[in-house]
């Protein structure tokens, strides 16, 4: 009976994960918080383990699905923002499906990497955690410098990095809106790209349902990068998937296609290692792990193993669902008037920002959009917009 309950919770979690993944602006953290607020009622009919299974399942499936609105619609969240540019480029070449498939491949292998890393990290992390905390600010400074120095136009890159950093610092530190990352990332990476698409009258060509070739050697190289960068950020406060991608990118040149695999892998690894962090150092580092930690105060080995087993079960299912939706999105997207679609998405995300983050979020959205457009017009890589997280995190360690 308990097994059936777990199975049912996993499937319901996948369903909600798909909805959260495909709907721009709806994050699993929001659903998790709602779930937590009604947990005293839910715990009358089920156990904390079942609620944990639901959250894990929803989180994993969202990790697979949330690249779809990011790449097809240009509506990202904080974990998928960096996928917009390479993804959009492939979309304009008629390879949107292939781009999503690359992130899903990354996710599938990321899942295996995270599971394989867990036994090692359980023992190592409690020992090395204090040292990593000390070197992290220095590492982030070096990464920021390497990001800027790798640009051909250094001064415009510095400018973009700093102004997005100032915006990020204000938004994240002054508590002016709820869910501050929503308008920040939507503006910098999403609506900026959509606005450019409207003004440049971008047309989406007919999408081919074909795979994009990436050599096995490059896939392995990319996965190794994710293997090193993800654990670095998974156990520390203030850093997440995006910083892991920036760190991995700093380890050496990576093609745009491989970068999508990298993002898919990092997204899943960071999510799973969030639960490992809860177990090994008793510090939840993701929204989902925070709620799980509140539901189960003694997060022991058995709950962790259940998390990993559910992640495996749901990961395989989510991969198939992801390809299914990617295929259908690809078939649909070229039939739609893209200018109208962009305008509708800008309207929808603006309304979502208004509802979730309040009136002031519109100022953040507009400022972010302007900086994002400026970044494109100056010919600076979008990854420099990550200054919006890197600068506040570096300052967090120093102040």
């Amino acid at each position, binding site marked *: 009976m308990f097994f059936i309950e777990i199975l049912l919770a996993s499937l319901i979690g996948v369903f909600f994960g798909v909805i959260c993944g495909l709907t721009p602006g709806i994050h699993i953290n929001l659903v998790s918080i709602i779930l937590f607020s009604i947990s005293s009622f839910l715990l009358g*009919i089920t156990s904390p383990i079942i609620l944990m299974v639901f959250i894990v399942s929803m989180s994993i499936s969202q990790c697979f699905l949330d690249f779809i609105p990011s790449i097809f619609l240009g509506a990202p969240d904080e974990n998928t923002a960096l996928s917009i540019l390479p993804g959009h480029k492939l979309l304009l070449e008629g390879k949107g499906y292939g781009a999503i498939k690359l992130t899903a491949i990354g996710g599938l292998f990321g899942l295996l990497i995270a599971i394989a890393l867990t036994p090692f990290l359980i023992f190592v992390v409690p020992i090395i955690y204090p040292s990593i905390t000390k070197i992290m600010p220095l590492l982030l400074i070096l990464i920021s410098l390497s990001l800027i120095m790798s640009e051909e136009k250094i001064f415009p890159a510095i400018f973009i990095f700093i102004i997005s950093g100032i915006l990020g610092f204000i938004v994240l530190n002054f508590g002016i809106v709820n869910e501050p990352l929503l308008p920040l990332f939507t503006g910098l990476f999403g609506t900026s790209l959509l606005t450019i698409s409207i003004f440049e009258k971008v047309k989406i060509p007919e999408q081919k349902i074909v795979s994009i070739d990436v050599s096995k050697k490059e896939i392995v190289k990319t996965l190794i990068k994710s293997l090193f960068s993800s654990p670095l950020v998974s156990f520390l406060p203030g850093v997440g998937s995006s910083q892991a991608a920036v760190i991995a990118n700093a380890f050496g040149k990576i093609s745009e296609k491989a970068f999508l695999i990298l993002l898919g892998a990092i997204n899943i690894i960071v999510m799973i290692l969030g639960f490992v962090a809860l177990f090994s150092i008793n510090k939840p580092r993701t929204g989902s792990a925070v709620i799980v930690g509140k539901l189960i105060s003694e997060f022991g080995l058995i709950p962790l193993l*259940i998390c990993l087993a559910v992640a495996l079960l749901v990961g395989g299912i989510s991969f198939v669902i992801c390809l299914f939706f990617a295929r259908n999105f690809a078939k649909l997207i070229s039939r739609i008037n893209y200018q109208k679609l962009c305008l509708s998405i800008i309207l929808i995300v603006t309304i979502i920002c208004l509802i979730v983050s309040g009136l002031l979020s519109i100022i953040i959205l507009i400022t972010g959009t302007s900086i994002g457009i400026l970044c494109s017009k100056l010919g600076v890589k979008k990854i420099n917009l990550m200054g919006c997280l890197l600068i506040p995190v570096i300052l967090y360690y120093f102040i």
Partner: protein
Amino acid sequence: MNTRILLKLSFIISLLGLFSLIFLVDALEPDLKSIGEILNNSKEYSGKEIETFGIASEIKNFSSGDIYFKLNWKNDSIEVRGSFIIPEINQNSSYEVTGILQEYKGYTYIEARKIKRFVP
């Protein structure tokens, strides 16, 4: 990468997760035991996960969110301590409790992991 191979891989991964869950649930879900049986064999069950049932009484709610109550069945009773968010416990209602049997200075109680309504 070939889609067919990837689909096979995802299928294998899901199966692996499913079998791991079957194994873990088996380890997680103990047999239902009466309070008398648990108390008579408390040395054997101490530190292990047990599952029992009974009627709640002497409910104490703490400001920390913890809840202590007595679980009674026939002439036996045992204290249950919940240190997580548990459903509202009502006096004289039946509950099924799963948790670790703890013994401290000769005092036996259950550190509850799961509490749900029980229909005898």
